């Protein structure tokens, strides 16, 4: 990773006030730290999985990367430019180069639009000449392995299956030839038998277009299939960051260990040992002091309550845990 990164986050925070107007009048608002000081780079052509439970900030991070939300503090850089200050033509250019692949294909397309209309819309927005549009649509459908466009173009979303819809959602994200995509749990709504097809298309497209990609999921098995690197998040913070295969083989952070153990496998002989993690859901309104994972951590010790663990480099990984920190 010697070349300049395509995407860069530095100490990014995204804090939401919660409690509503009445609580605000009473001065009782609390702040939810959806993203709480994260730093990472994504190299050109790299594919990175953002892994964690609901509420860990993975989707918020994806939104920050695409300038769908503005960070409370910190900077998000894309291709050398701070995206929080993008305006006008620069912003429009960014909007074509960075794209989101939606989670739910059944809701991502306008039900009243034909597939042709859904795919034409981004081309219109980007002022692609009318004469080119049909060819661009056909090319995008071929890219996602829907080779006979005439079968689809005049149909409406309800006439297609989930796997076909998700490929069309991908085609729409790719039609403007982006360099960066964020895919938010793109197969979670699909049946297992068609998931594999969509994941294969995702892998192929990445390789063919040389895309830089962020893949958001709570399932390490899926992330492993499409990402060479994984960033594990817990309560708005990064806990571990490194090559996916290393994380699968030997997770270092206690939370990653629990996540790896919990990944569902279709093997009748799997272990039924209890997970190495405390019960209960993390509460983002009221996280524990020090390391926010300590109340569920089976290995927590005194230092964890008083001091938030900073990044420690272990081999080619970065771990935020006192177990691995120099004392």
């Amino acid at each position, binding site marked *: 990773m010697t070349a300049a990164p395509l995407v860069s986050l530095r100490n990014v925070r995204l804090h939401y006030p919660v409690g509503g107007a009445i609580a605000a009048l009473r001065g009782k608002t609390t702040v939810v730290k959806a993203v709480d000081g994260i730093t990472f780079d994504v190299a050109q052509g790299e594919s990175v999985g953002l892994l964690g439970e609901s509420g860990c900030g993975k989707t918020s991070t994806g939104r920050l990367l695409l300038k769908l939300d503005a960070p409370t503090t910190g900077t998000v850089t894309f291709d050398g430019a701070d995206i929080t200050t993008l305006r006008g033509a620069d912003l429009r250019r960014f909007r074509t180069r960075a794209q989101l692949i939606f989670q739910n294909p059944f809701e991502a397309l306008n039900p009243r639009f034909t597939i042709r209309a859904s795919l034409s819309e981004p081309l219109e927005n980007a002022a692609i000449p009318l004469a080119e549009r049909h060819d661009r649509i056909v090319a995008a459908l071929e890219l996602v392995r829907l080779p006979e466009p005439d079968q689809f173009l005049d149909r409406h979303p309800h006439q297609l299956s989930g796997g076909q819809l998700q490929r069309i959602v991908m085609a729409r994200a790719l039609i403007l030839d982006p360099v960066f995509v964020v895919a938010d749990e793109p197969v979670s709504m699909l049946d297992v038998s068609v998931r594999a097809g969509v994941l294969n298309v995702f892998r192929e497209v990445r390789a063919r277009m040389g895309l830089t990609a962020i893949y958001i999921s709570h399932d*390490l098995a899926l992330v492993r299939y499409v990402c060479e690197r994984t960033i594990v998040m817990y309560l708005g913070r990064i806990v571990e960051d490194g090559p996916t295969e290393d994380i699968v083989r030997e997770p270092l952070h206690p939370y990653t260990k629990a996540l790896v153990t919990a990944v569902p496998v279709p093997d009748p002989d799997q272990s039924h040992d209890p997970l190495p993690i405390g019960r209960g859901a993390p509460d983002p309104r009221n996280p524990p002091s020090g390391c926010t994972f300590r109340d569920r951590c089976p290995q927590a010790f005194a230092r964890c309550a008083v001091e938030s663990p900073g990044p420690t480099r272990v081999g080619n990984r970065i771990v935020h845990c006192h177990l691995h920190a120099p004392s």
Partner: protein
Amino acid sequence: MEPLLSLRDLSIAYDVDGGTVTAVDGATFDVPRGVIVGLVGESGCGKTTLARSLTRVLADNARITGGQAFFDGQDIMALPERQMNALRWRKIAFIPQSAMNSLDPVYTIESQLAEVLCKRGGLTRARAHVRSEELFEMVGLERGRLRDYPHQFSGGMRQRVAIALALALNPKLIVADEPVTALDVIVQRQILDQLRDLQKELSVSVIIVTHDISVVAYVCDQVVVMYAGRVAETGAMRTTLTRPAHPYTMGLRNAFPDLKSAAGVLTPIEGAPPNLMHPPPGCRFAPRCPFAQARCTDSSPPLVQVDGDHLAACHRWQEADVLRPLAALTQTWAIDIGATEMGGAKS
């Protein structure tokens, strides 16, 4: 011992604009006492319709068009509504798919439990309170949270509440529709552990409806694989998953990313399930099956005994040992599905 539930040729159809959709077509299988049965298949295969039919709470346009379901020896499809109603909650409890949203947001959990315990179970308020505390303890929730409202619980806790509700009147059979689908992997695992522990402790039978064979592999003793309204394969979980006799089951296994094995290529089953308004002739899986022959589109394969309680509906079941290694190869499934791709739009 006589099974707790025996389905014999059960068929359920929906009347829709322009025809009839046979969502469940001649389902036959048993649920033994004190086991967990996984009912697995993709969306539209009829698994949810079948599960709902066991409480006879079906959509207005649904009809039971044939067959029987013997629960403790009694055909519940033929019972008068009054007697059926007496079985609901008391003998057969249902955990709906949207258990997370099925709790009434304006009532406390305690009053929702009390409704079941008092109205259905005939308990006094005081007894209901004691029982509610007991139930909360059983599913691993703090008693003190009985007075809380559904929105104050996380997704996993709401799922525990749904399990507590199902257990309220000590049923013999619990039908859970996708109990962990919307949950994170860690919570999924904890809920499945809880369900398994309670099932053993109380020796109830549980039917888990799921699209996820890893859920089946983790908690189920038996499995019923459904495809396009029909039972494709059924048997003991271990046998069915490790030595499947139906190509659909073999294909499902390949399509699943597995963390414990090397990072190979996932093989999808190309195409989509058929439109049940106009199902294909013969075996319904034939259009997507790499092993289909002429006879497969000519006639429907019956469910035949492979070995013991292992049954499969495939014309080529006797060749399963030869087909299995072929089914593990990616190129086997790279078939041109052309026209079949269009069929499976789900409403």
